[in-house]
């Protein structure tokens, strides 16, 4: 599978019709998703014949991109009914030969008790995700004190996967994530630095400002691996 070819397949994916800002449902573009999946496969060989999971799967862009590299089994988790409905439609459309399952669950709720998900832990090899950047306030109290939503996603991914977690984060959080990774006995590396388009939002009514120039933010494509 060539990179360009993958990107053009991914153009067929239906995205959010009405993205929910409080869930930070930003669109992962086919361009970004194809590069991410391509690099994970070519540089690290972390997709083929592996068990994959994605938290905040949204409309399925990353999981479908990864499916072209034949994982054994993929699980997508999302809190939002509308996103999952579109995602299921996309999965059906692509007629993927690798099995993909979806569940509706809240990462914040999963994190409350470890026993909620211990049966899942270590069944998965790799997580590929684009979690909320944590620009909206979605903090919770966990055993590990307050964690921003971006770190909650990383935490659950690190506990699900025995091998690697690939995730997109605002570059300004890099040093903080490095510290967190160390606490979790993981090694963090920056695979690449990207620019991400965030639509502009009116701070008074929280609505998207139409035709406003989109804001580019600096984002890190990170790889976290467990230190054995």
């Amino acid at each position, binding site marked *: 599978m060539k990179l360009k070819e993958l990107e053009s397949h991914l153009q067929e994916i239906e995205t959010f019709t009405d993205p929910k800002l409080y869930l930070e449902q930003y669109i992962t573009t086919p361009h970004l998703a194809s590069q991410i999946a391509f690099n994970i496969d070519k540089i690290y060989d972390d997709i083929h*014949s592996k068990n994959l999971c994605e938290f905040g799967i949204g409309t399925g862009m990353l999981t479908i991109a990864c499916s072209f590299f034949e994982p*054994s*089994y993929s*699980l997508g988790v999302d*809190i939002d*009914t509308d996103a*999952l*409905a579109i995602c*299921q439609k996309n999965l059906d459309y692509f007629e993927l*030969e*690798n*099995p993909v*399952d*979806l*569940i*509706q*669950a*809240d990462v914040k*709720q*999963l994190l*409350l*008790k470890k*026993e*909620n*998900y211990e*049966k*899942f832990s*270590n*069944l998965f090899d790799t997580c590929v995700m684009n979690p909320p950047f944590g620009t909206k306030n979605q903090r919770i109290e966990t055993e590990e004190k307050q964690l921003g939503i971006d770190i909650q996603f990383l935490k659950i991914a690190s506990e699900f996967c025995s091998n690697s977690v690939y995730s997109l984060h605002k570059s300004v959080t890099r040093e903080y994530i490095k510290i967190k990774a160390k606490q979790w006995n993981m090694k963090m590396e920056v695979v690449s630095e990207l620019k991400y388009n965030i639509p502009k939002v009116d701070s008074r009514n929280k609505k998207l400002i139409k035709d406003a120039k989109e804001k580019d933010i600096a984002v890190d494509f990170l790889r976290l691996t467990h230190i054995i």
Partner: protein
Amino acid sequence: MKLITHNMLTSKILKNVVTGYPLKIHAVKAELKKADFQPDFIARMIKKIDYKTLYQAAETLGYAEGMPKTEILNEEDMNNEETLKKLHEVLLEIEVIEGDLECPETGRKFPINNGIPNMLVNEEEL
């Protein structure tokens, strides 16, 4: 929802629930969806899953015939191609499309719509 996924789901998040496992399946609609057979994958997974739960789930859905009737699989089962094929079907090809999952302790039901189990709970249930 495939049975590999069901094998991992619990209702332990609910207040006062001790094990919350396995969740009982009530299927209104289920179907078979072909997937590529990967013998190595099945052999690897079968060591990680709860076989008793898988067997019960397959039995509920009427697909247990051909599965070794045991609580834990032995080496011989894991090396038998026919058995692995059957387990492949049960783990990855059976899809519950509509129905629900029931907590064995509280009876709380988690709906499955369009193949997606909804495991969300309200604040008061936590």
